[in-house]
Structures are given as structure tokens and as C-alpha cells.
């Protein structure tokens, strides 16, 4: 591949996937600036290994996998534990989030979901990845992904029902 072709291919990837990767990075790291760094690092790495990407169709999964690895590397570097990471404070007033009560409730419920349930759910719901795709990205057996998705939706439903009950109780005269 010539340098010009490589540059063109790279720019296409950045324009096509940087937004998705940023959102994904945000939901696995819980922090906007970390998400930005993760995606920057991901694309720098992608540039170095772009020649190894043979199929354009596989680009998105490839980049998503790099984001995951960069995030894992961050934990190795800082000796952090997942439990040390707090999601950004749930914003009720920031203009860049949908602040409708039902959406806010769901953001809280998502935040409370264990990370290993939240991640496959986001991959499936937002990007429509199949169970097989998610299994490959997360290096897990397909059945495990199915179990996690099942539990994720179940837990979200339970949490939302709980929040609804509390909301009704606190708003009753």
C-alpha cells in the first residue's frame, strides 16, 4: 500500500469510527478525558498496524478491540482496579446529556450495572453487534456473552422498576 493510500484509508477510519469509539471508551472508562486519550492512542496504534488490516469490514471490530486493550493497559500501568473507577457524576443539568427523568434513571441504572454486563449490552444495543462479534471482541465464549446480556437486561429492568417504586413513594402526598 502506498503512503497516500494508507493515509486515505486512515482518514476514512477516523471519520467513520471516532465518534462511536469515543462513546464506547466513555462507557468503559467512565471519564471523558480518559475516553479521549484512549481513542487517540487507539488511532495512533491503528496507524502503526494499518497494513495488518486486510478487510475493511473488520475495521470497526478491530478498532473496538484496540480500545479495550488500551483501557486494560491503563489499569496495568496505574495498578487501578475497576472498582476504583467512578463514572462521571450523573449529570442532570449538563446540556450535553438528555435530562429526561426516564433517560436519567436509565443512565443511573447503567452506571450501577457491573462493568462486565454493561459492556456487551452497549456493544449490542448501540452498534448492533451480534453475539459472535461481541464474543470475539471480548474474547469470551458465545454462551457467556448471552448470559451476560440476559442478566444485564434483567438487572436493568429490576433497577428501573425499583427506581420507579421509589419515585412513586417519594412523590406521593
Amino acid at each position, binding site marked *: 500500500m502506498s503512503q497516500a493510500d494508507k493515509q486515505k484509508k486512515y482518514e476514512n477510519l477516523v471519520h467513520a469510527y471516532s465518534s462511536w469509539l469515543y462513546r464506547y471508551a466513555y462507557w468503559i472508562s467512565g471519564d471523558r478525558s480518559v475516553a479521549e486519550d484512549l*481513542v487517540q492512542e487507539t488511532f495512533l496504534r491503528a496507524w502503526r498496524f494499518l497494513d495488518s488490516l486486510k478487510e475493511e469490514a473488520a475495521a470497526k471490530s478491530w478498532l473496538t478491540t484496540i480500545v479495550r486493550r488500551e483501557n486494560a493497559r491503563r489499569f496495568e500501568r496505574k495498578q487501578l482496579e475497576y472498582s476504583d473507577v467512578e463514572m462521571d457524576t450523573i449529570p442532570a443539568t449538563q446540556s450535553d446529556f438528555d435530562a429526561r427523568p426516564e433517560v436519567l434513571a436509565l443512565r443511573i441504572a*447503567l452506571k450501577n450495572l457491573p462493568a462486565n454486563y454493561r459492556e456487551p*449490552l452497549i456493544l449490542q444495543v448501540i452498534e448492533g453487534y451480534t453475539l459472535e462479534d461481541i464474543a470475539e471482541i471480548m474474547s469470551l465464549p458465545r454462551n457467556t456473552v448471552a448470559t451476560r446480556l440476559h442478566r444485564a437486561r434483567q438487572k436493568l429492568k429490576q433497577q428501573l422498576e425499583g427506581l420507579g417504586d421509589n419515585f412513586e413513594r417519594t412523590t406521593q402526598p
Partner: protein
Amino acid sequence: MNCLECRRLTLINPQDDNPARTRHLRECERCARFSEQILQQDELIREAVLVDVPEGFAARILLSQSLQPTSRRPTRWNWLSLAASLVLAVTLYMGAVLVPGMINETFYRPFESDLVAHTSKHDMFAHVSHEHITDPEKIREVLAVSDTALPGELGSILDATTCVIDGIEMAHLLMEKDNEQFVVYVIPHESIVERTFRHSNWAGQLVNVDHRSLAVLNRDGVNLDAAASHFAEVLSTPLSSG
């Protein structure tokens, strides 16, 4: 297809177009309503995860790539990093040889601390009598969380519950071998560095078992090796293999 199976498939993927599920949804009003609720929940998730991407983000990425050197000649910083890495490697090697356990203490303390903290906080020894629990259904549910099949030998499980440690939901068991009791965590889908540890009056051992790992703890460390091997055998079958 029955309602249970239909709901299971709905929770895995509410957009699943499995013909049997579709047929069941046409016939069962309650499952149809359940499926609709889950679809609405997914729609809300799509709205809830939307986060604004910083302005000019793609341009910044392209700029930082363009500033990368085309060839990577080692800089003074690279040489310093290499030297520091060598010193660290030698120190750790010496530490591992001269002070057994130093590497474990240095690198794995956070996860082990979490395990021990959780074990101390939820002291199963304090609540369980010597009678074995006899509800296989409860044990089956708990083990399913860790992708583990119900073992044939239930007698060694005295108590079973689930917990979340380090963001991972796992089975938390009290097990018995040769009249000694052990706290056992079945960590799903993880591959860890097998090791033993001592932390705050607890001794523990971490072993890998077919796509999962076990953490086996007791207070004095007596018979820990034998117990870890035994429990690894008892809990050896992953659920997802079936």
C-alpha cells in the same frame, strides 16, 4: 416454545427473529408485553448512552497522527526507559529469588485485598452450622453466575451466595474438606496468574479451572493446597460447555 424460553431469548436479544419465538409472541399476550417493555428499555439505552463527542475530535486525531515521527529512532528518553526497565527487571528477579512472595505482594495486592476484605466483611464461618445446605436449586443458581455446572458432590458446599468483587459478579461459597472449612470464590471467565497469598490473617490460593478461576481462602492456610485441588475438581465443569 414456552414462556420461560421466550423470555430468556428476549432478554438476550429482543430483536431476535427466531421463528419459534415470533410465533410464541403472537400467541402469548404477556410475553408480547414483556418483549415490548424490553424493546422500549433498549430504545432508552440508546438515548441514555449518547454522549456528545468533543468538537473537532476527528481533526485532533488526524493532527496527532501527522505529528508522529515517520521513523522511530531511539531518543534519550527511550534509552533511559530501557535502562530503568532493566534495573526493575533485575530487582524483581532478585526479589523473587531472595525474598519469596515479594512479587505476589507487589503486583497482586489489590485483587487479593478485595477478596480478603469481602471475605472478612461477609464472614460465612460465623453464620453456618455444620449441617450441609440441601437446596441444590439454590446452589445451581449461584454457580450459574460463575458459569459453573452443579457438581455431583454437593455435600462439600455448606453455603452459597453471589457477590460482586472488582466489578465481577461471582459465586461465593463456603466449602468443606476433611472437616476444615474454606471460603471459595468462582471467578467467571477469567484467567489469572496462579499463586498463593497471605493477607490480614487470611491465606489463599488462586487456581485456573477451564475458563474460570477459583480463589480458595482459609484462616490458617492448613491443607490449602489439597483443598484447592479438590475444589477445582469438584467445580471443574463449566456451564457453557453443556
